[in-house]
């Protein structure tokens, strides 16, 4: 690990000020960033500990939305009685991810900012456009079983590893941030993560020094909340594919996919086909898919998992 200076920010203004230092990075749970720092995939020169900013509350807003502080731990979000009752898809997605030790540390904002688990991103001996823009993509033509089937580019076929973010996408959550100049803004989750294009190293809409302060959930969304994750082990493994869904008794609803793209994958137009069965929805969700020999199974897996989810919803 490269050496770095360290400070604990006590206010947003302090954090914003500190973020101007060269090579500065915020740290909260640290469960992903420290792992990457040990491998020198990330080498911040200055770490700003934001754990003291008091952004660890979950509050019900007067209009019925639920505001989740950036520093709320994954365990606390999954266990919150309002989340368990009204946002089951989110609780389920969180509990399907990582281990209890990691969920006890990992934060809401940090979970959104997780970096890919592409093995070539982790292998510093191999070209990777995320690690070294312009160096090439080793996954294209390499082992690509875990990789993206939609929205990828010739520069990168990595997937986003988060379960939580898939549920946030199906709920249409809003990401609240504070910019380095003190201004604040709200980014719809649909626009928060980027597709790789020619700049796969730029993964989110955040500007340098911009800090996530909260993620706000809409008013409770009626319907059966389901998160179905398919993986190589039944616990403590990343998704091959996952389905987050909220389905009403009449079969209408919304659905988002994990493990298939560089960002949580939702195609609102596909949801018009919910009444026509899983095949119709899957075809629309995965229109234009480009697979490799290794990951072509994901198309079949999405269809079958979606079928199972829709059948479960019917049972109630």
């Amino acid at each position, binding site marked *: 690990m490269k050496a*770095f200076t360290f400070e604990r920010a006590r206010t947003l203004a302090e954090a914003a000020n500190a973020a101007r230092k060269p090579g500065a990075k915020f740290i909260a749970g640290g*469960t992903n960033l420290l792992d990457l720092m040990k491998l020198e995939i990330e080498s911040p020169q200055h770490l700003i500990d934001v754990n003291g900013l008091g952004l660890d509350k979950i509050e019900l807003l007067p209009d019925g939305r639920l505001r989740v502080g950036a520093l709320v731990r994954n*365990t606390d979000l999954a266990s919150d009685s309002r989340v368990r009752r009204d946002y089951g898809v989110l609780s389920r997605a969180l509990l399907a991810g990582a281990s*209890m030790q990691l969920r006890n540390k990992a934060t809401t904002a940090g979970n959104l900012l997780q970096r890919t688990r592409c093995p070539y991103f982790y292998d510093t001996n191999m070209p990777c456009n995320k690690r070294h823009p312009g160096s090439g993509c080793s996954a294209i033509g390499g082992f690509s079983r875990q990789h993206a089937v939609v929205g990828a580019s010739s520069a990168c076929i990595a997937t986003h590893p988060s379960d939580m973010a898939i549920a946030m996408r199906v709920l249409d959550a809003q990401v609240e941030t504070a910019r380095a100049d003190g201004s604040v803004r709200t980014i719809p989750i649909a626009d928060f993560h980027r597709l790789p294009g020619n700049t796969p190293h730029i993964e989110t809409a955040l500007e340098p020094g911009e800090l996530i302060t909260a993620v706000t959930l809409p008013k409770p969304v009626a319907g059966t909340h389901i998160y179905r994750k398919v993986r190589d082990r039944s*616990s403590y493994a990343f998704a091959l594919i996952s389905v987050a869904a909220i389905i009403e008794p009449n079969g209408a609803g919304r659905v988002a996919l994990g493990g298939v793209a560089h960002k949580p994958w939702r195609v609102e137009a596909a949801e018009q086909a919910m009444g026509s069965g899983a095949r119709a929805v899957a075809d629309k969700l995965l229109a234009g898919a480009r697979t490799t020999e290794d990951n072509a199974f994901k198309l079949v897996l999405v269809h079958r998992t979606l079928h199972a989810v829709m059948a479960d919803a019917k049972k109630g």
Partner: protein
Amino acid sequence: MNEFDDITLTRRDLLIAGALTATAAAVPQALAAPQGAAPEQAPVSAKVNLQVNGRTHVLELDTRTTLLDALREHLQLSGTKKGCDHGQCGACTVIADGRRINSCLSLAVMHEGSSITTIEGLGASDKLHPMQAAFIKHDGYQCGYCTPGQICSAVSVLQEIKQGIPSHVSADLNAQPLLTPEEIRERMSGNICRCGAYSNILDAITDVAGRPA
């Protein structure tokens, strides 16, 4: 006469000597900085207060020091083990402010004022924690390397179920989770045992869970 009679190194000493040799061999390469590279930041140290097993420690540490290394290398509490050092195996599990975490994925300087419980704080050889006694009774280990982490997790699992924290296998998110083998297995999945003592570990935890608190 045995030619090894004068060698009294313990297995631990040997492991340390081996690690030092490897480090020494690596130094010349590390010093040979590539030409034109940005100057490296010199090591930085910072002060941190840690409450470990009820005792306060003030440490001056390189900011890169993980909580795991602070415990093992600076406080000589070597019960907590370093397995993968990447949060994948659970050997480094400790309880920080009442919650189990991977101490390898946390910087010591981020634990200012934290209260840490390690395996040494749970029990001692003359006064075992009930979970330690149950692991012995049920043979919940073979080599023992993952055991301190397993025990810190196991103690926390029972606490988490009592607190009503749901898991991936809880059928009803809104009900009190049950003390079933399925729940315990899911909650222990962050602790790997390469000897494969899982079924005995489950027996040990079930035994402790079944006793009145």
